[in-house]
């Protein structure tokens, strides 16, 4: 038998295990020579009583000490792993295994040290990776299912358990695919396998609508994501996330339904409604708005306003846009062209919209088409002017006789005087004095005729309502002058009470207001002329009422027979057999167009009174006791 070619000493001094003997105070009594190579410290350093304090990483020192002393005291031996710092500063992991032995009545630890750095690092990395996955799984807001690259379930989080209604134990090791409904399963598998094969790809969010199937068979809409987790053994794991869209769908549905409601409301409004954001893009338009420009609603939304409405329209509204985006609401009346190119009158309001930080994030624009109103207003104005004109003509018709008379009287005198003058001068002994008197009368009668004509011209003028400063007292005096001959003819005295302390300056149209007072004074004359007895009288007076002046036209006639004094202002209501019944209607129309009013009343003791109230010119307004 050949002796074994094995030297145990050689093995102890050169193997990967470093033998040592240590006392219970952790001081080494002996250590294998390979220890010098292991850590780079000379042999004598190993024997220092404070050696371990110097080389063991601080965090691990307590653990090492407990293991050795505890193991020695209990006799169970030592088994511990710890980090030490080599002479060159590199940290490595050592495993220490020892057993307690007794020699010379002293306890000793006999054991081995060996380098476990490589294994330890691998373990830590693995632990860290798993810890990370666990943390992701735990903290993720979504349901997470961890699978291998083969699609078999390895782990899942609590959310996944509650979403799918499976416990991990139910499905661990099974394919993940049955978690999606059968109709989607092939597609899911396709996606999953493509992702697993494409190792360059770290993560994926599946854009298409997916669903999962719960244990009970109920489908839940989800958004699916996948991320790659690199495994230590080279095999990737895949973290599948399932975001439950039920809540989001509900919110979206609510939003859609509230938006639908807003749209419905906006669409039934007889207005164009839009919301324009800070970049001047339409964010919302109602049907009316889209129709106006001849676009589809969805084509308009998202587009710049300028692009939709055109440069010239944009130029018109740009100042209002700027103001709205600066936080100021504005209202504009303007004219714009519609899709057919027709000009429309619109009232536009621009109302800024503030976000929660009070910054403007856009503005609402509400546009009303007021074309028909504007046309009606124009027609109304035209109608009023027409009416006033008709009234003037009618009045002229009624007055025609007296007008002709008024004019023909001075003309007759002029002609007669002129011809008398010629004859007086043609005589054999010319009567120069009488001829001169005749010519002087010619001049004065010609002036009188001219005055009549200029009063008539005012009445005949037809035009838009003018705004000029007028003294009512003077205007009324002119009217009285105009009806003088008629008043005389009918034996009626027309008197104007001077407005001594009353302001009578108003803004208005002289021809129209002359019309008003002509109507009223003529009415008075006609009413009183039916009186059998004298005196027949019409009085015009002025009364201050706040910022207005009231002109009272009072007669001592029979008064208004009817109690329905308002009815008097209806067209074709008249107390006269030959009247049209338009006078008071027209008077009121004109007065109201001047911001005033007309009321009729009976005077106690007999007679009628019409009170015309007109606002004073600004400079004549002054506080009065009742104003």
């Amino acid at each position, binding site marked *: 038998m050949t002796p074994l070619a094995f030297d145990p000493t050689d093995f102890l001094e050169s193997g990967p295990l470093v033998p040592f003997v240590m006392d219970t105070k952790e001081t080494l009594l002996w250590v294998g020579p390979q220890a010098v190579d292991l850590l780079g410290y000379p042999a004598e350093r190993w024997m220092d009583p404070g050696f371990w304090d110097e080389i063991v990483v601080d965090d691990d020192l307590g653990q090492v000490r407990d293991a050795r002393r505890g193991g020695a005291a209990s006799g169970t031996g030592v088994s511990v792993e710890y980090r030490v710092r080599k002479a060159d500063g590199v940290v490595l992991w050592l495993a220490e295994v020892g057993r307690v032995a007794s020699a010379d009545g002293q306890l000793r630890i006999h054991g081995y040290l060996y380098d476990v750095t490589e294994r330890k690092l691998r373990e830590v990395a693995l632990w860290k990776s798993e810890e990370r996955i666990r943390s992701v799984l735990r903290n993720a807001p979504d349901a997470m299912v961890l699978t291998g690259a083969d699609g078999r379930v390895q782990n899942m989080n609590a959310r996944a358990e509650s979403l799918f209604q499976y416990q991990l134990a139910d499905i661990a090791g099974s394919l993940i695919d049955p978690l999606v409904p059968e109709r989607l399963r092939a597609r899911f598998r396709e996606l999953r396998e493509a992702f697993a094969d494409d190792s360059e790809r770290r993560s994926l969010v599946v854009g298409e609508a997916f669903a999962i199937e719960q244990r009970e068979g109920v489908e839940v809409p989800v958004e699916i994501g996948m991320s790659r987790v690199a495994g230590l053994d080279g095999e990737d794991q895949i973290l599948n996330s399932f975001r439950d869209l039920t809540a989001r769908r509900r919110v979206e549905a609510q939003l859609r339904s509230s938006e639908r409601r807003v749209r419905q409301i906006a669409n039934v409004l007889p207005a164009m409604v839009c919301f324009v954001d800070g970049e001047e893009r339409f964010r919302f338009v109602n049907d009316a708005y889209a129709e106006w420009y001849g676009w589809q609603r969805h084509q308009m939304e998202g587009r710049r306003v300028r692009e939709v409405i055109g440069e010239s329209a944009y130029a018109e509204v740009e100042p209002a846009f700027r103001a709205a985006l600066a936080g100021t609401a504005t209202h504009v009346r303007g004219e714009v062209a519609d899709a057919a190119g027709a000009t429309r009158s619109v009232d536009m309001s621009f109302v800024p919209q503030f976000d929660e930080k009070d910054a403007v994030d856009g503005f609402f624009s509400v546009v009303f088409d007021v074309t028909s109103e504007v046309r009606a207003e124009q027609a109304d104005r035209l109608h009023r002017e027409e009416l006033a004109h008709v009234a003037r003509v009618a009045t002229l018709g009624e007055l025609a*006789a007296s007008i002709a008379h008024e004019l*023909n*009287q001075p003309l*007759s*005198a002029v002609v007669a*005087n002129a011809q*008398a003058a010629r004859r007086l001068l043609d005589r054999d002994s010319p009567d120069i004095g009488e001829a001169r008197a005749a010519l002087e009368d010619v001049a*004065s*009668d010609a002036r009188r005729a001219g005055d009549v004509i200029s009063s008539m011209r005012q009445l005949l003028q037809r035009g838009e309502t003018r705004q000029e400063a007028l003294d009512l007292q003077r205007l009324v005096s002119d009217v009285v002058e105009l009806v003088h001959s008629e008043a005389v*003819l009918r034996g009626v005295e027309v008197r104007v009470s001077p407005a001594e302390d009353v302001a009578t300056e108003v803004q208005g149209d002289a021809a129209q207001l002359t019309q008003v007072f002509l109507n009223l004074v003529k009415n008075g004359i006609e009413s009183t002329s039916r009186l059998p007895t004298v005196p027949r009288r019409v009085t015009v007076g002025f009364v201050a009422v706040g910022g207005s002046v009231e002109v009272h036209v009072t007669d001592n006639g029979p008064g208004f027979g009817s109690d329905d004094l308002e009815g008097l202002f209806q067209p074709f209501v008249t107390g006269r057999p030959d009247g049209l019944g338009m006078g008071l209607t027209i008077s009121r129309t004109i007065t109201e167009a001047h911001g005033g009013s007309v009321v009729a009343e009976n005077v106690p003791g007999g007679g009628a009174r019409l009170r015309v109230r007109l606002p004073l010119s600004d400079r004549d307004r002054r506080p009065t006791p009742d104003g």
Partner: protein
Amino acid sequence: MVGETRFSGRVAVVDDDASVRRALARLFRSIDIEVVTQDSGPAFLASPALHDVDCLVLDVHMPGMSGLEVLDEVKVAASKLPVVLMTGRFQADFAERAIAAGASGFLRKPFTDSELFAAVAEATGEQVP
């Protein structure tokens, strides 16, 4: 019918307008015809002139009593007195109404001296001037 004789009588002018009265009076005097004037019908009817003039030139439109009313009174009180009516108003049937009322002539204001004299001549049957 205007005869050969030249009118040498007196004329009354009744008109409420003073200018007209004065001018017409001056015109008649310029051809040496004597004139009296009154400013209203009642005043004329009450005056001695009613029976002392040979022609009345009467305005129709006067306050109180109109020229036509005066004409009626004249027809009663001095049926032979020729009356020439004057009007300053436009009235299409004025001529018919004037003649129907018994007027001997009519004038629309304004009128020329020859129209006036012709009307007086026609009314009196004598030449003016």
